[in-house]
């Protein structure tokens, strides 16, 4: 990717990597919830893949041994020779000191039904329909938070499923409620669409939105469309439920208008590579995500990676591998985690106004929809909920000093929910900001063998970030 000089930033290549060079001390000046004009905001990236993860292929073989908190053990990742594991390969070495590999976090599920939103909602489906009981993903909470966004953003949550149907059961892991019902949030399958969302109409870069004639025309047009909706609501004999649907659409039209008027990105539209294979597809997608964060279009990215090689995408076959071929399954996961490593390295290649990299100023949370994909029968810790025990977690970035990094951490037997609560803490949200549906904490707290987690079920415990990992 080539990123053009922006109004407030120079970027130059150094040794094959792009780094940001401060200009007059105001590179990437941003408002942040901390209020410092030079302090970049904390960005959040959730990265999700699917079909589970065999523990022996994912976690380092050298176990954490240092007790760093009651029931929590850690090992410095630099003490591990060679690649961290088969799946977390040498591509991660360049950011090893800035990441964590985490185990010992479990999610509760009412049964062994197919997944829907475990990594990002801490919630599983109560019936076999891929719809979570608690349909709120971290990204959907953050994108509507005035703490994360004191003013309207161009793309409050940049959701991407590069090259993959977002609406499929293995697609977007982003959920909210709409009119009381669970609603899976779309993600951009196409990089062209993501690029349009981040940068708006092509050809008017550098023009303030209010002076952009394309945006001005769209604002007038949407005003009139909103007027059409109002006329129909008022003139047709509709049920109240139908009128409500139309009203919702009007609200979305207004939101589109707000986003059009949001501050434009500080960078020019990046060049995109010809997407002749999945490698290039992900390179482009990663660049859009990085530029989107770096240049102020978004502070929340939800990225999904589902391909199995530069040329291979076949969910049904990947699913089958998860069940009956650990070697092929691992090969597939290696490819996906290479994309994660590429994302982390790319984020680490850009220095922001505070002298730290975009990765340093962010929190990246990577997880799989499941843990052990079906083979774990003999060594599962909690029989009957194999799929959600010992979730394979990676975090990266210290979120402006709020997270420990460089560690392999074993939490023993704790709830994944508390990791998501930790993320909310990092982003400045209190429990009043993130709690939903009357649930204290975040996610499901009922399910098979819930009694194993009794120590973490009190209100205070549910609202507590993970010890050691989170630095208050």
């Amino acid at each position, binding site marked *: 990717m080539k990123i053009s000089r922006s109004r407030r930033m120079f970027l130059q290549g150094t040794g094959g990597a792009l780094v940001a060079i401060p200009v007059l001390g105001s590179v990437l000046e941003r408002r942040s919830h901390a209020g410092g004009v030079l302090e970049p905001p904390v960005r959040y990236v959730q990265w999700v893949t699917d079909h589970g993860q065999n523990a022996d292929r994912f976690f380092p073989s050298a176990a954490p041994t240092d007790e760093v908190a009651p029931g929590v053990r850690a090992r410095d990742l630099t003490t591990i020779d060679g690649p961290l594991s088969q799946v977390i390969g040498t591509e991660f070495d360049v950011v090893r000191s800035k990441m964590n590999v985490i185990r010992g976090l479990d999610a509760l599920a009412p*049964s*062994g*039904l*197919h997944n829907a939103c475990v990594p990002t909602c801490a919630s599983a489906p109560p019936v*076999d329909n*891929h719809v979570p009981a608690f349909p709120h993903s971290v990204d959907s909470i953050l994108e509507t938070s005035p703490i994360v966004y004191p003013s309207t953003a161009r793309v409050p949550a940049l959701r991407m499923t590069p090259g993959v*149907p*977002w*609406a*499929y059961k293995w697609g977007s892991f982003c959920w909210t409620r*709409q009119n009381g019902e669970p*609603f*899976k*949030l*779309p993600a*951009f*399958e*196409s990089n062209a*669409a993501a690029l*349009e*969302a981040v940068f708006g109409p092509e050809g008017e870069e550098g023009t303030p939105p209010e002076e952009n004639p394309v945006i001005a025309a769209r604002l*007038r*047009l949407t005003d*009139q*469309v909103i*007027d*059409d*909706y109002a*006329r*129909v609501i008022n*003139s047709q*004999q*509709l*049920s*109240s*439920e*139908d*009128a409500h*649907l139309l009203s919702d659409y009007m609200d*979305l039209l207004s*939101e*589109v208008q707000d*986003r059009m008027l949001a501050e434009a990105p500080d960078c020019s539209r990046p060049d995109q590579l010809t997407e002749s294979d999945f490698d290039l597809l992900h390179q482009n997608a990663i660049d859009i995500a990085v530029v989107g964060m770096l240049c102020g279009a978004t502070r929340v990215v939800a990225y999904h990676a589902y391909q199995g090689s530069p040329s291979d995408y*076949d969910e*049904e*076959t990947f699913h*089958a591998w998860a*069940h*009956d*071929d650990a070697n*092929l399954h691992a090969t597939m996961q290696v490819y996906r985690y290479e994309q994660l490593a590429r994302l982390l390295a790319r984020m680490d290649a850009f220095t922001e106004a505070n002298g730290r990299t975009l990765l340093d100023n962010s929190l990246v949370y990577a997880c799989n929809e499941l843990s*052990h994909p*079906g*083979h*774990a*029968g*003999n060594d599962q810790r909690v*029989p*009957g*909920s194999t799929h959600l025990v010992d979730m394979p977690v990676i975090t990266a970035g210290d979120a402006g000093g709020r997270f420990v990094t460089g560690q392999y951490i074993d939490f023993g037997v704790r709830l994944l929910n508390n990791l998501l609560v930790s993320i909310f803490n990092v982003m400045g949200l209190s429990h009043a900001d993130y709690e939903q549906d009357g649930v204290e904490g975040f996610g499901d707290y009922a399910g098979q063998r819930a009694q194993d987690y009794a120590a973490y079920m009190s209100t205070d415990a549910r609202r507590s970030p993970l010890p050691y990992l989170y630095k208050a």
Partner: protein
Amino acid sequence: MTSRARLASIALLAICTSTGCYRGVDDAATAGGADGGDGDGGDGDGDGEDGGVAAACADADVRGTDNVSMRRLTRAEVMQSMEAVVGPDVMAASTVLQAAVQIPGESPGDLVADFQNGHAIEHVAGLLVTAEAVASEVGADATARGTVFGACADTADTACAGSFLDMQARRILKRPLSAERRQALLSGFEAEGAGLAGMQWLLSRLLQAPEAVFHLEPIRAACDPDPVACPDVPGGLVAIDDWAVASRLSYALTGQGPDDDLLDAAARGELRTVAQVRPHAERLVDSAAARRQLSAVLDSWLLLGTRAKPNLAVAGALGIDADGLAEEAREELLEYAAYQVFDADAGAAELLGAAIGFPRSQRMAELYGSEVAAGDAPVTLPGGHGGLVLRVSPLMSGHPYTSPILRGAYVRKRVMCDDVPLPDPAAVAEGLAELDAADRTVLSTRQVVEAVTAPPLCAGCHQLINPLGFAMEGFDPFGRARTEEVVYDEAGVELARHPLDTVVDDPILDDDGPDRLTGAEDLAGALADSAKARACIAERLYTYGWLRPAGDGDACTIAQVALGLQEGGSIKDAWIDAVVAPELFVRTAEDSQ
């Protein structure tokens, strides 16, 4: 009683109850099956005769009660509706295609189950830029400009814009413009400076109007002020207006808005009874759009968009060109189904069992062991191929070996519409580990599966699944007929050969179904005779029209459609019957303004 139980009462033996099938079929039958043994399961002889219909239709008051709210158009419906107005060339323009990718698509899986009746902001923003692109393209293309805007478009004044609205607004909005709305649109046109740019503005605005985004369903004016006073509408329901009836009919059968004939009929108030609507349905179902819509129905029903792709290593070892093979196999199935439904006017027996197909390439013909289909007529498929599922697409496996469990479950769930609850995950983990550890050089796939699923905890469900899968063991992982099982490793190297055993006893299909299947041809025959499969066809034809799973209020129509198929009616008639039913005209009255 649930709608599924009502269907079960027609489709006879409920083999898997909502409590799971671990307790086994005998227990379920003893307990009275899914309907709880309340005695309304029809005549119980397995033929789906009118006893089942009578039971399903006993409570007329519930008919239509699942029509609670209007729904949004799918992305495909939006695009197809635009195409019907502006033509395919405009929709194929690169600027339009680039804009359209910003409208989120729908699930490529079972859309009836997965459809979400709500918009995200991406839908709204995507439609905005797509409508702009379409309008821009129409303005830029002389032919489209004349067709869509009229001859006066280049120097359009208000009269020209009015003419455009009179000509096109009804097609786009699927109902007439009120005078007030028309004036508002013309004011907008003038405010934008009129001319061609103003015409494009008008088109873009219309394409985003509520009537173009939702299936608007106002109450029919004649029922006002007391909807219940409409004599042909059961209590608790209201009649929707004629324009909404036209839309429901057209989208269900064609996936796009009503044509002029249908709109004219709506304007005359001639879409208020089944008798009035049916001729339109018969006309629409013979259109090219109906063929496209049938493909959409089948994609959702048979999960054709998400079937496994062939195993590349074994394909390479066998010299099979796997590039695009899964897509070609899907196309072959769709062409077969379209031929049966539209060209042969076939019934369920033919659709489910006919040994014909349309392999259009040499590689597909080789997989079927047939000739290449060169013209409009199908070729005969040997080796037990045929029907809806004994074809390359559903039979294909991503593995070097077949999966009788997946194949059997597919037929059980997709063709018989049986609920097969997910098994206990711990048992699955254990079973999969055993499957993985099995020495396939010693044991055949059938032997491995039989051993792994033998424990009582597994057998309850697997006795419903395995026999159907074993009967299909006469097909290899590419869907080719075979006489012995050849075992390959993941690199495509042959490891062993095993004799085939495709004979199964007690496949548990219909009550009066066969006690034994000797292989695929018997299975195809049993499916072709199956009342449950007919009920399943009826359910899928019906539910796709509404894009929601069946509810209590739908059971009567589904039962009647199933009965029509059982009595030898054609699939095409069944589709029409599924759409042109009393609930086409009504919606619930609750909360009506």
